[in-house]
């Protein structure tokens, strides 16, 4: 690991620890309103001030970090699992199955990612409880974000298909499922790991875009996306620069994820 990667990994670890321990040192619940002090500046009681509804900004930031940083990896795990299964099976089996999987991948890759998410989001009800909106947003990303990874994994599995150890396993009477789980998957593990890491920042950014557009995590549940909706009013922002903290945190986390990504030989 290069020194810069170590620094990035350390920053990510620190943010994860802070996020997990947030419950113990939060000044207030994220939805609690201090109605007498809306739009307040930083003070000892509210380190990052309060928002327009008088809610403590630090509490909302820490809860929002928890939502984004726990669920983006969960969605990435789901999408990587789907991509691993489909890609490995397509690469291993070849023939019609591979063609169908790759054609489906081509079709969904032809669609801009946000268009696809908007279509699926429009199919689901919009007036849902905040917790359900969080689950919907990340589940949607997990279920729809596998296409790019499938192509990479399928190409790698195709490379393994004609290897000697697989030929030996086949001649010993190994069934396809066992071949996939015991022989192909372990060889592609670094690739699965790389695809998982690539997906996390992508999902963090997508959640931010969806929530800013009002189609992601719903209020009062905080996430990095809906915390950034406050950035629309730049006149307020110049007077209260601490409102940029969610954006700064998001940029730092995404940059750190980019830095800790394995080398391109593994990811492509």
């Amino acid at each position, binding site marked *: 690991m290069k020194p810069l990667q170590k620094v990035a990994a350390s920053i990510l670890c620190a943010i994860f620890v802070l996020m997990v321990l947030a419950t113990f040192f939060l000044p207030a619940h994220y939805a609690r309103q201090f109605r007498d002090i809306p739009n307040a500046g930083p003070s000892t009681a509210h380190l990052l001030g309060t928002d327009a509804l008088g809610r403590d900004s630090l509490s909302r930031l820490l809860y929002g970090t928890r939502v984004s940083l726990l669920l983006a990896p969960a969605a990435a795990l789901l999408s990587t699992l789907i991509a691993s299964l489909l890609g490995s099976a397509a690469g291993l089996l070849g023939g019609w199955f591979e063609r169908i999987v790759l054609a489906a991948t081509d079709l969904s890759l032809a*669609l*801009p990612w946000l268009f696809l998410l908007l279509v699926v989001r429009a*199919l689901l009800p919009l007036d849902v409880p905040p917790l359900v909106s969080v689950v919907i947003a990340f589940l949607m990303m997990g279920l729809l974000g596998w296409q790019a990874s499938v192509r990479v994994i399928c190409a790698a599995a195709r490379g393994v298909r004609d290897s000697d150890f697989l030929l030996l396993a086949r001649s010993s009477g190994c069934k396809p499922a066992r071949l996939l789980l015991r022989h192909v998957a372990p060889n592609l593990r670094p690739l699965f790991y790389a695809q998982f890491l690539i997906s996390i920042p992508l999902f963090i950014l997508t959640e931010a875009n969806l929530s800013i557009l009002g189609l992601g995590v719903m209020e009062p549940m905080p996430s990095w996306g809906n915390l950034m909706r406050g950035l*629309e009013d730049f006149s307020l922002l110049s007077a209260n620069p601490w409102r940029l903290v969610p954006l700064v945190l998001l940029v730092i986390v995404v940059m750190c994820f980019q830095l800790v990504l394995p080398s391109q030989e593994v990811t492509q």
Partner: protein
Amino acid sequence: MIETKKFTSLFRLALRRLLFLVCLGLCGALVSATLVRFAPGYGVEERELDPRWSASSVEALRRQQALHQGLPSFYFHYLSALAHGDLGESDSLKRPVRELLRQRLPVTGNSVLRGLGLAWLAASFLALLGLASRGWLFEASATAFNSLLLSLPSAVVAMLAVHLRTPVFCAIAVVVFPRLYSYIRNLLLRAYDQPYVLAARARGLASRVILCRHVLPLAAPPLLALLGVSFAISFGAAIPIEALCDSPGLGQLAWHAALGRDLPLIVNVTLVVSLVMLAANFFADLAGRTFAGSAP
């Protein structure tokens, strides 16, 4: 003779890809039809609740709807209407989707093309500048700047564009640029490291000649493929940018449709965008293969 063979194989490949494209388009249309058919509220007519309508009129309306209730019949009607350019009617705007697309597509097309042009120019220029200088300071600062842009959500870029009063295409260029820059730089770097480029340099060939005769022909096919991909990236970026910059394009239309749960509109807009993307990828792929075939 060899030329004829090359042309024939390219023609066959183009035909095969075109057939594949048509099949994909048909699949996309079927998926769209399924989404519209099973959308919540499909088949429910507000006019049935209107007291001014007589019982016989309501009955006639129901009979007309029942004609398309069966799935095969619905698919047939949807696809035949699609073949005639009829994309249905928007639920929320009560206007034909075709008319809305005719109004909005040029706005987005204009922004996307100009944004892509700017992003490609900036990314190519910076990548070439970096390779010419090969200084660590330039490389480090360009990589850091690129990484910063990659970490910004498109919606935040759109907010900045609103604040700075920059045109929509500039915001699209800012979103697309970092994705292009790193790829173009890596491609050119790989091409410059080829032994024959090194040999050309050792022979004292001018940088311009090396770039045009040896580096670009090698990098052109993947760059052309990237052109197809960059279309998809810029159309995706157009949603938050047009929505927040209040630009009346396809992105804003899709956003309004999603907020209003207007399934016929968003599904058909997405179908048209995906067909445009498939066509762009087809031409980029074909151009790349032609270039690879004609390269020395």
